[in-house]
């Protein structure tokens, strides 16, 4: 991996963090409403995977998808405007935080119903396979989503017909407040793939380089017609499930351990049972981003000054996005109706078709 690529990945991780923190602020100020599911802590996953993607690949995501959208190349302005429900938003203010779509960037949407990403990815991959194109469909989902029936149904069909899908499980160990060992009989998610004969691997989702390497290899296989591949990426979200969730079900020490990217997290966790209060969510310490910063500096790819510049750059971009969103107009009911009727061509439905 060359210097430029590393720099680009770090930059995207910083953008992601800055974007989400700005969104949280917008929510706290009442500028953004609805459910807001943030990504801090998990940046290495989206950045690692999507930097391995080609423009010809498709992306399907969940309600926790701002960062996937951002890294995929949708302008921060358009995402932020969508969060604000503005007409300049990527979904014209009709979709909102959980429903970012961008046809031109092959971003097939954020889905708010857990388990929907699987059949959408299946259908997209079916279309790709039917056309015999060397394109992959990247399907993101959480550890909680794998217990939905569609996971099973879709993995079976994907394997049966060798469809070009990279399944990416963002295993942050929680289904809202329910920890993985309380929702899944088998907690090593990648082992679920064995029931379909899909090659699967578990990778450290806090290490962006490891994620990137695994994703690149898997995507190459997918695009070359080897059928679906499965990656489990172990990660952690620093915030509550959504802005409405104080995350009081998680031990303080668990959070701190992940924030320090501490390898003994699991061990500590076993020994810990107290459920501390919300203020446990305070300032973020060392994490996947700091870790990668350090790595880049150590390897001599970047220096502290450049990282500071990067931070300033991305902050400016995000500030601009917020300004843009705030200043944009709201859609009116006429806009809503015209979006709704956009594709409804009644006249076509009169044609004879001899």
């Amino acid at each position, binding site marked *: 991996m060359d210097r430029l690529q590393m720099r680009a990945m770090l930059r995207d991780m910083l953008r992601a963090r800055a974007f989400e923190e700005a969104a949280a602020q917008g929510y706290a100020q009442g500028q953004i409403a609805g459910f807001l599911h943030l990504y801090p802590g998990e940046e290495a996953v989206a950045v690692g995977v999507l930097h391995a993607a080609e423009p010809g690949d498709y992306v399907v995501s969940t309600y926790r998808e701002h960062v996937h959208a951002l890294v995929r190349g949708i302008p921060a302005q358009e995402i932020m405007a969508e969060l604000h429900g503005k007409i300049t938003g990527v979904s*014209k203010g009709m979709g909102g935080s959980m429903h970012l779509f961008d046809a031109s960037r092959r971003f*097939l949407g954020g889905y708010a119903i857990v388990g929907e990403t699987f059949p959408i990815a299946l259908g997209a991959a079916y279309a790709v396979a039917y056309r015999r194109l060397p394109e992959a469909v990247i399907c993101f989902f959480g550890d909680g989503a794998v217990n939905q029936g569609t996971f099973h149904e879709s993995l079976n*069909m994907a394997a*049966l017909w060798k469809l070009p899908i990279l399944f990416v499980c963002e295993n942050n160990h929680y289904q809202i407040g329910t920890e993985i060992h309380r929702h899944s009989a088998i907690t090593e998610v990648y082992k679920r793939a064995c029931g379909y004969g899909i090659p699967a691997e578990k990778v450290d989702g806090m290490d962006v380089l490891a994620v990137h390497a695994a994703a690149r290899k898997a995507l190459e296989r997918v695009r070359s017609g080897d059928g679906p591949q499965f990656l489990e990426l172990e990660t952690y979200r620093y915030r509550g499930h959504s802005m409405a969730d104080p995350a009081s079900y998680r031990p303080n020490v668990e959070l701190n351990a992940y924030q320090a990217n501490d390898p003994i997290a699991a061990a500590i966790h076993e020994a810990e049972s107290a459920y501390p209060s919300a203020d446990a969510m305070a300032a973020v310490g060392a994490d996947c981003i700091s870790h990668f910063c350090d790595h880049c500096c150590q390897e001599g790819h970047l220096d502290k000054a450049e990282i500071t510049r990067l931070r300033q750059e991305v902050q400016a971009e995000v500030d601009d996005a917020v300004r843009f969103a705030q200043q944009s107009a709201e859609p009116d009911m006429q806009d809503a109706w015209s979006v709704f009727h956009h*594709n409804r061509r009644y006249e*076509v439905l*009169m044609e004879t078709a001899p």
Partner: protein
Amino acid sequence: MSDLFYWQSLNRAMDAEMAADETVITLGEDVGLYGGTYRVTEGLMAKYGEWRVRDTPISENSFTGLGVGAAMLGLRPVVEIMTINFALFAIDAIINMAAKIPFMSGGQFPMPLTIRMPGGIARQLGAQHSQRLEHTLMNVPGLRIAVPATPQDAYWQLRQAIHSDDALIVLEHELLYFSKGDVNEKAVAPPIHQALLRRSGRDVTCIAYSRMVILALEAAEFLAKEGIEMTVIDLRSLAPIDWDTCVQSVQQTHHCLIVEEDCRFAGAGAELSATLQERCFYFLDRPIQRVAGLDIPTPFNGKLEAASIPRTEDIISAVRQMLGTPGGQS
């Protein structure tokens, strides 16, 4: 012009569309090798290959969702759900995905998806195999619903459905597959949502759809012998509904009877009645009546099953009663 079974006309419609457009594919349980439970996809796999005619596992939710995802990439999938009863597993894909994605995406993704499914009460298939889901689907903005009653409409409406860039449900009826009728494959089709007058009469307007149209016509024939002239409107579409055709007729006859196989309580007929009383109130001599299915799970026993849905006699006596009873206090 040829005399075809309803299933054959659907089969011809599929064949015509698949021949004309490579983006049309079909999938569902046993649609390929087996040729479809009701033969609608017969011969297509041999002709178009298995990537275009795909046998699926029993995974309704995901293969219907597959249709949604494929439609987002520009294919025009025709998903066959073997019977409507199994659509209960696919309802999230239909309601939350197919119907909402075009809107939620700000109009970026059209949804050229067709979902075909036979429904209605056939013969002694028991309560779980006798669903009618029109009410559920009608309440979902973003879906259109075609309900062909004749082989000609089956041919036209399936082709139109495949052309539609909206999610479109074609509700077939298990007892109609082996009904026969003339099909003109060259004729110009009326708009998919246009209701058609199958018979005109001055005394009462009967509005029906799918198999109930056949019964309504039988009843009209019978009533004519008693001097009662009944208009029979075949709705052909449950979403949108062609209100103008209905309103015009009711304004002339001053009497309206709705016939549906669906359970009466909160069935499709409820919407028809509610809107027509809004639009025709001052023209009506009597309240709008519904002849509908009983509000009971379908009994297995054949006689009870038959008694649980409208029969021709029920229509006849409802009309007699409507026209015969004195007008009350108004």
